[in-house]
């Protein structure tokens, strides 16, 4: 049994999301910040007339924000019928991963990371962390 994962990197680590959940991937838009919003919600973007909430994965993962001049990418995923965009550093390829290579996260993982990771696929190129989309977007 194998799964197709759309991958991206955040602060050097590689993450993956089930490719069927990804609506689209695009360059980050101008965001409108939402004051008083829970941490992680970096703002709202206009996605062809649709107002879409954006979550900064770096904040979610407890990492420092990306440099001001960096151009992050948006991965738009569908969660409970609502489109939500995830802010990531870079977009990677779509990987075919074998379920046998999957392992639940080790206990030593930092709490912020542990919360949003389903587990890791041990690939030849390194570890691919499977993101728990529901949790990651439940800011």
């Amino acid at each position, binding site marked *: 049994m194998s799964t197709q994962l759309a991958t991206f990197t955040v602060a050097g680590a590689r993450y993956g999301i089930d490719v069927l959940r990804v609506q689209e991937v695009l360059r980050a838009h101008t965001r409108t910040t939402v004051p*008083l*919003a829970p941490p992680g919600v970096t*703002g709202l973007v*206009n996605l062809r007339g649709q*107002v879409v909430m954006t979550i900064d994965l770096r904040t979610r993962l407890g990492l420092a924000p990306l440099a001001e001049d960096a151009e992050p990418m948006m991965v738009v995923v569908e969660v409970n019928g609502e489109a939500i965009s995830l802010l990531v550093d870079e977009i990677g390829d779509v990987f075919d991963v074998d379920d046998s290579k999957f392992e639940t996260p080790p206990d030593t993982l930092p709490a912020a990371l542990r919360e949003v990771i389903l587990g890791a696929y041990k690939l030849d190129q390194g570890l691919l962390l499977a993101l728990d989309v529901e949790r990651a977007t439940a800011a």
Partner: protein
Amino acid sequence: MDDMDEIVREFLVESYENLDQLDQDLVALEGSPGSRELLSSIFRTIHTIKGTSGFLAFGLLEKVTHAGENLLVQLREGRRQMDLPTTDVLLRMVDTVREILASIEAAGVEGDIAVDPVIDQIHEVLENRTVVTVPGAEEAATDAAPESAAAPDEADAPEHEADLEADLEADLVPVPAPVAVEATDAELASELDAAFVQDVEDLVADAALDLADDDELDLDTLLEAIVTIPDPAVVVPPAVAPSGSILPSQRGRAADQAAAVTEEPASDAPGPRTASDASIRVDVDLLDALMRQVGELVLARNQLNRLADGSVDVDLVRASQRLSLIASELQEGVMKTRMQPIDHVWAKMPRIVRDLASTCGRQVRLDMVGGDTELDRTLLEAVKDPLTHLVRNAIDHGIEAPNDRVAAGKAAIGVLTLRAYHAGGQVVVDVVDDGKGIDAERIAAKAVERGLRTPEQVAGMSEPDLLQLLFLPGFSMAQAVTKVSGRGVGMDVVRTKIEAIGGQVDVESAVGRGTTWRLRIPLTLAIMPALTVESAGELYAIPQVSLLELVALDGQKARTAIEYIGSAPVYRLRGDLLPLVELRDVLETGHNREPDAPAVIAVLQADTQRFGLIIDRVLNTEEIVVKALSARLKAIGVYTGATLLGDGRVSLILDVGALARRSLNAEMLDLDRESASASAATAGATEQVLVAGIGDGRRVAIPLGAVTRLERLRGDLVEHVGGREVVQYRGAIVPLVRLDRLLGAMSDAEADELLVIVYTRGSRSVAIVVDEIIDIVDDDTAQHSQIDGHGLIGSTVLKDRVTERLDVTQAVLTADPTFFDDRSDTASDDAGDFSGAALPGQSLRSELDTLVGV
């Protein structure tokens, strides 16, 4: 099968509409029992349902309506007068019909709804009151042609007709039902305008003869002929349809057409009935989708407009202007398609009013004005319950029992008026009764009793403010819980529901003369005008509906115009204190505004409160399309939604009501109510107060009643007892309280001399230390506000300065906690009552003059 479903669905929709009309007509009929028009209308409705249900093989439905029809026949022939039992039983029949229809709608079958009780009741009414001839079924009425031809005579031959009815009743199988249709419709026709009827009858007779002649009927020709008769009273006898020779398809069409045409107004009966050939039924989802798309178009137009604004390309500008125009028209057009007259909701009111009036033992006349005022259908749906609630309330609490009314010199019959009209881009719906009105005093008492307000709070409130208490959750005026109301679930729900759709509720009442409830409802929800504003670099949209006015503060003014009471900013708007809210503070964005930076105060109306929102600047007004926000962001409770601005940016729409609730505490809200009422009130009571400075430029007002003497004391006279400061004064040890410390100000006065206000009660005194004595002035209580802090009981404006009102009791107790304890001579409950001056004002005045003069 699908075809069948379609027919049933249409039947249901039509029947529901007809039943609503029926309720209205029946109640109206009770008021004017002789009205032939109403009777005809009722008869026709029941008849249509009966005919169609026979056609669709809904046996129960047919049985019930048939029984009802029998009763109606008697009424129509004048053999029976419309009276209470008759109306009741007919209304009950209508209810049963509704139940059956609901069952058909839900399950596709009639189900096992008990129809016999109603039928029995109808029979009871029939038998008890009148002599009904029930001959045997020997006169079989299966031959259509002769019956039809005989129609012109039937008006003169009630006996014959009764026989026919009896026949039908005796023979309740679906097949002969069409015959009944024929006969009764012909009769019905005979009730109508004579000339017209003659025409119809001739046609029917002709057609019938044709039918007899060659077994072939040109239905279309007949219908055309009838429809072209220039009279609104068009009744097509479905009559002709049933004769055995017509093909099933024709039969269906005939039924459809007949049903459609009967919708047309047959008389001056109230309520609009749209002409079937001038309108079509459209799926609501389609309309919703259209509305959404128009919303997108409006956004695209805004965007293009913005581009064109900065362009020198004349063609682009022209094209954008044209697009703008067309988009506006389209928007208006699509909005119109979703509009429905408020009559749709009102149609149920006569029945509700009637039922309630009889339950509560009232006599009520219902007047409805402006029923053709149109509202977006979603909004219409949303106002239904609140409106019903208000109507119930008006009858239960408003209109008095007939005896009481007569005793009060009013007509025994109360008048309940529903009035709808357009005003200021909103639809206003008034529910007016001429009942006993609402006694503000009783509201106050109730509010205190229920612990919703303290007696002190209530005492300072004006009548309009007291009426606002009705909207508090858990408030109920009913003495006892009745079936109709008094459960405490009331006006707050009405308000919540109306506000949920961006509307407002207001109430005005005059004791003994009546109450007016006023609902203001926006025309539509999806697209609304809004003000775009900037705060801390971000843009926000404020719904125009809550905006009262804008006050621009330029650099110089911004520094001085905003005053502070404690830490709460206020602005003096035409003499009233307006509580202010800094948007950037509420949203916790950015740093504090530079005091000199220009700002704008948007004066907003939230619920019943007015407040000023401080923003950096105003950009423009724009038609915005409300986009739903992610539930998580909505939960923050400050935004109602988001929208896209002309430049494509996302902007948050502020929830004005939530902003007010979030940032203004209860006292602040009271302040606004009070200041609002102060302007309305005639000259408020005045009270003389002593104004004293306590440092930091702060001023305190002390009621003159609390001032016994003013003294200057040397600073070195202050001694200590325990932790307390005392002075020896006139042979007694008097505790000192320093107001600057009590109220948290920094005294500017030198320490070697103390300025004290001596407060004496009985043998005890307290010395209140202030910085300076300023003056004795008249304090207009109407200017009072509840904005306060520790040791204060509010604030006021004196000599153009915001002045804090000292809580003397607390100040005294700070100095001497037992001060009020051992006063057996005067009741302890006047501890805080300083209104009676202890010294004649004049002598104090001279003391003051000497002090101030120094």
